[in-house]
């Protein structure tokens, strides 16, 4: 499997809204913790080691 960098989320505005909403009212510290949990949950869902490495590289730019 290859890392998908093409549009893949059905409802982009709705997703973005939801992402911001879970951070609403959180301190910087709590937001950072939430982001870390989210990354770990998504990474586990992806699972594929090569895709994860490609994603880490894509995030590094």
């Amino acid at each position, binding site marked *: 499997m290859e890392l998908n960098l093409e549009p893949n989320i059905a409802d982009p505005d709705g997703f973005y809204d939801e992402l911001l909403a879970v951070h609403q009212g959180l301190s910087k510290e709590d937001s950072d*913790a939430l982001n*870390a949990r989210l990354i*770990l*949950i998504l990474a*586990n869902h992806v699972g594929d080691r090569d895709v994860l490495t490609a994603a880490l590289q894509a995030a590094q730019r």
Partner: protein
Amino acid sequence: MVDVRYDIAFQLYPYAPVAAQTMPAQRHPVVIVGGGPIGMALALDLGRKGTQVLVLDDHDGVGQGSRAICFAKRTLEIANRLGAGQRMIDKGVVWNVGKVFHGDDRVFQFNLQPEDGHRCPAFINLQQPYFEKFLVDEIRVAQDEGAPIEIRGRNAVTALDQRDDHVLLDVDTPDGPYQIEAEWLIACDGARSPVRDMMGLNFDGRVFEDNFLIADVKMTADFPTERWFWFEPPFKDAGQSALLHKQPDDIWRIDFQLGWDIDREKELREENVRARVDAMLGEGAEYELEWTSIYTFQCRRMQEFRHDRVIFAGDSAHQVSPFGARGANSGVQDADNLAWKLDFVIRGLAPEALLDSYSEERVHGADENILNSTRATDFLTPKSEISKVFRNAVLELAQDHAFARPLVNSGRLSVPCVYDGLSLNGPDMLDGPERTRVGAPAVDAKLGQTYLLDRLPGGFTLLSIDAPAPEIDEVDGVPLTHLGLTARGNPFLKERYLGETEGAVYLIRPDQHVVSRWPEASAEDVASAMRIALGKGV
């Protein structure tokens, strides 16, 4: 003068003058410097093979203090091969369950419950002095049976000079100095190895800026026999992490991670140690302090473990953090790897190049251990703000979700090293189980009333399982023992050695690692693989 650097738990080899001290330098095939667990395991292995070996130790017995406490299955299998394993298992505390806490919360628990059909448990806890004493006791048994092993206590090596065909040693004793010639010198003299220093060899690596306080306490508590580990412990002044683990004789190992900037002397004062232990065990807990120590550690290894006629084994060659019990356990694998090679080279049955494979294989092992223990240390002590955020996210998620539990790293416990892709490996022609692939140590399996590893006592073995045994009994003077078995009615053998195949022939080294395996093998196949395993090339 021979300095006394530490107190003795068991005086096992008191100083006794020998005639050699008043004679010109005597030649010995093997001199081992350092009578710790690695030196003694090596001496016992060589002596049992009939190779003359002299151990020099600058003390007269086993040092005080529990130090290494966690001995892994592979170590016990090696000790069994040497005849000392059963006493260790009988004395040791067998444990399987570990619990991990974060503050007051229990994150999860794990169970190392080993699968059936193995003689040895996954781990035992046993104070290092017992481990060493049982080896020395077995050396005494071997000596009575004629094994040419000699131990000289309070003999300190003070200088050495590598000559063409030997190493000249200056040795100090309570009666003054004398000289010894060693054809092979094995430095098992610990992390601060004086031999390494005398040779001016590098020992670079990563320093971890942390201090760990060990308190071994004696108490009759009804805590279960489990490994309890806390990240950010909830009790007062416990530091970044803490560990509670049971040893024999009602001794409990308690570990506190104190950080870098501490006053060692102050923290080691009894009242300060007690304050921490009280906070952990609860006010009013009754216990005696058996042994306390503060340690720091590095992860590092020598570039090469062989330097001509001087060979390094154990902590003198490599050092890791204690998380994962990879120090003493890997050192015993060093001894296991070196003994048979040295024995064959001394007997003229293998070229000296075989000893380079010791360095190659054990450097590979050391790198694996350093990698694992460095990763555990980075998880225990996050080095940046964001690494701590991720670490705590893992711990939080692990309470609710199974997926995060494999990410929790309080030490990856020692597993035997597999020599994948290294020089002594022969061909792997069998589509067999991965765990018994070429380079791996043979996996134990129950055979009726005995166990497979007990049937691989220290030479080359040709194991045929439901396959014809090739007709070959020796290769270039090295004997080969046959072991023919059937996997019919033995699910352990089938699962561990055959998998989906009908039959197999395994060539196994004296240290029980697999050289080669085939569905069927000819005598030529076996001879060719044996020569590779003897360091004679392809």
